């Protein structure tokens, strides 16, 4: 496993639907990888979470 793979595993993103908008928590022990662009898997995850939040909001 490369250091990049390890870094990708270390970052966790949590998206919560709030009353006024969105809350985004990024958990990453390495500040150098904390704000890098999303990977394909992360992008899919974010899209699903946003879709789920929007559905819950309208429901």
């Amino acid at each position: 496993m490369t250091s990049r793979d390890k870094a990708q595993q270390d970052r966790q993103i949590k998206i919560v639907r709030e009353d006024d908008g969105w809350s985004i928590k990024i958990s990453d022990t390495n500040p150098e990888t904390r704000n890098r662009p999303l990977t394909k898997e992360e992008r899919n995850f974010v899209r699903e979470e946003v879709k789920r939040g929007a559905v819950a909001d309208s429901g």
Partner: protein
Amino acid sequence: MVKVTPARTHRIVPPSTSWRERRRLVSRQIEASVRWVEEHGLSTVVRWGAVILVSAIPTLQNFGIVTNRWWLLPWVAALVTVLVFDHHRHGASLIRLIRGIGYINSSFGGSFDTISNKIPSDGGCLTEEGSQSACIGFLHRIRDYTAFALRAEKSPRLRATLAVPIVTDGSVKALRIWAYDEPHSDRGFTTIPLYDDKGQVLGGAPAAYLTQDIHIVEDVHRMRGGHLVGASQRPYRSILSIPLSARDTDGKPLAVINVDADEPNFFEPETVLDRVMPLLAPVVNAMGLVLRMRTPGATYDFPR
């Protein structure tokens, strides 16, 4: 006798260069031409015009509408245009991207230079005036980077602000805007309470400060609690609140950066994470460094 100087000709390829160098030079010339076409908004017209010619001429010949064999020349020219255009388009886009980021980055570098000159030569701390002017410069870069990342150079109108904690009776009860990216005519150095009347954390900057997460407010006009004075009248509708990663002694962010847009629902979680934050991270962290370099225990000054 008048001495006649031969007219100078512009050589695209200088003599005595290797084949590889000649190829690179020609490639750069073509890329520059493609970029010129794109910058003048002609790329779609040129490409589609060439594509239509490439497909239409053989079709018309097939039906006997075009019989003159000289129509082969525009067909070949159109085909070469399409091939060359597509081949060099990526290079031209890359140059445009680099120039866009380079424009903001050069100003970002200048902001660092300003800070270096504001630090006292005897190794002291940054003054109120020094730290505020440095933050104003960084806020300007934050607005520029956000506009670049979200392709909002012209619309919607963006604004970046820095909200700092206000300590009352030993604890933080509110945030207050301490710096703007530029001297906006409608700036009010607004005080933003952290909690509503029921003691619940308010969205946007207060939530970002207390939870240390990024917060997006979709529409200020529909905000719970209406904690901003005259919220329903405010021209800036959506807010992106980013807490600084630099912390105070209580572990709370030193400040919260807000990027406001005069359009509701402008910020989306995906674009913020994928495009905005990677560009903003150096500026956000640089601002944390500036606030850390302020005189210890110094309070923030606001206009009366």
